[in-house]
């Protein structure tokens, strides 16, 4: 599989790997995918008092594109409001990383992870 330089860069040097305490009230966690399918993404966002995402972390079990997709979105999420975060589309991820057609599902998974993390945080804030 020939990957783009951007995928390789994120894969070799993944950004923002790690975990926040999922019980913190300002942390939203999204875990999507299944081991049986070959990919599981855990994406966490930490919201500041101003309602803006101040930090994001991920851990991903999956192929190089899955790791790169989740690494990329942790960079994109910082500085965004929850609504802006929800607007991140898989097509933008796929385009940025030049994902081959068979790997588009990795970008879909990353979008799902963002939505799940935002949803988790909104539920906590209620």
């Amino acid at each position, binding site marked *: *599989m020939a*990957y783009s330089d951007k995928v390789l860069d994120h*894969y070799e040097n*993944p950004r923002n*790997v790690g*975990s926040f305490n999922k019980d913190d009230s300002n942390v939203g966690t999204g*875990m*999507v*995918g*299944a*081991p*049986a*399918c*070959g*990919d*599981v*993404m*855990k994406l966490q966002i930490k919201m500041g008092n101003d309602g803006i995402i101040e930090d994001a972390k991920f*851990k*991903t*079990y*999956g*192929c*190089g594109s*899955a*790791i790169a997709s989740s690494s990329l979105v942790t960079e994109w999420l910082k500085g965004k409001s929850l609504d802006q975060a929800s607007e991140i589309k898989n097509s933008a991820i796929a385009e940025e990383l030049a994902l081959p057609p068979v790997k588009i*599902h990795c970008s*879909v*998974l990353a979008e*799902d992870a963002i939505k*799940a993390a935002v949803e988790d945080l909104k539920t906590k804030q209620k």
Partner: protein
Amino acid sequence: MKNKLYDMPIYMDYSATTPVDPRVAEKMIPYITEDFGNPASRSHPYGWTAEKAVENARKEIALLVNADPREIVWTSGATESNNLAIKGASNFYSKKGKHIITLATEHKAVIDAVRECERNGYEATYMEPEPNGLLDIEKFKSTIRPDTVLVSVMLVNNEIGVIQDITAIGNICRENNIIFHVDAAQATGKVKIDLETLPVDLMSFSAHKTYGPKGVGALYVRRKPRIRIEPQMHGGGHERGMRSGTLATHQIVGMGEAFRIAREEMDEENNRIKNLQAKLLKGLTEIEETYINGDLEKRVPHNLNISFNYVEGESLIMAIKGIAVSSGSACTSASLEPSYVLRALGRSDELAHSSIRFSIGRFTTESDVEFTIALLKEKIDKLRELSPLWEMFKDGVDLEKVEWAEH
């Protein structure tokens, strides 16, 4: 073996193919240039020279497996041999019945040839092996029907290297008057084969898995008792009508030389490779949460198939690009299913996804193995740091009980 010229990775994929032994290549070259004759030309020395070379090579194939040279039919490779054996024999003996038994872990060339027979009105049973990859003989007996015409079981599995008990299977076939075909593509030069005593009717061979060239193979067709097959390739009636087509003299000479070397050096080579396998096994199983796929005892020393839990196969392959290996992960193939062989062993999708096949051979060195172990240790550590499953496992979460948001 590292190709320094192109900075290629260390080759650990000998089950996919092997390099042509330099002694083999040297022997082949004159048959491309000066001795180019058609072995079927009976009227001049060009033909006679080529024919002599082909018949010498045929003897070498026969010698390695203790058969009569007249029982060896040249083909383009093991895929063709499997097709010729399965379709050719089942068609010839179709009056006996139209049921075929094979193993779910066979090579695709066998599975798909049997599927083609199914499309032509045959019924087939694809037996599931035991979790160690071996066929249970009692279960095999119970799948035999009065109309079973052909059984096809491989000697050495290409993915997990296990050795099936073809003597026991063959004896049962004999008792039930069933043709027995064995795919031995992965076995030559690794396992002793004595067709004088083995109850096998048809056996497929490949050159390129045994340090010969690609594009040539052979099918053993027993003479006593005589086994008949319907040809699948029609034409000039070469190979006693069983396989038409001008013989590729240089390829055949290469296969003969490769099999001669295999016969002479097999014992010594297997000892050396066994030591390398033991070293690799010891080093890799020092890594936590590793699972060996396939029986460790009834296995060729050339193969180690290991699943590294909580690490996904394709990302692992990317991480270990200093070595050339293959993976049972879906992501390395066009289909999205993980290895059907590992699934047939009852391995979970997760473990099938995280499997790596290391296959070593003639040119593998101690330092290649040491490099591999160190590389795997480092990269698996790194990928597990990235893995949410590893984190959950370390936190004591039972992953079986998690409800996954499947997509």
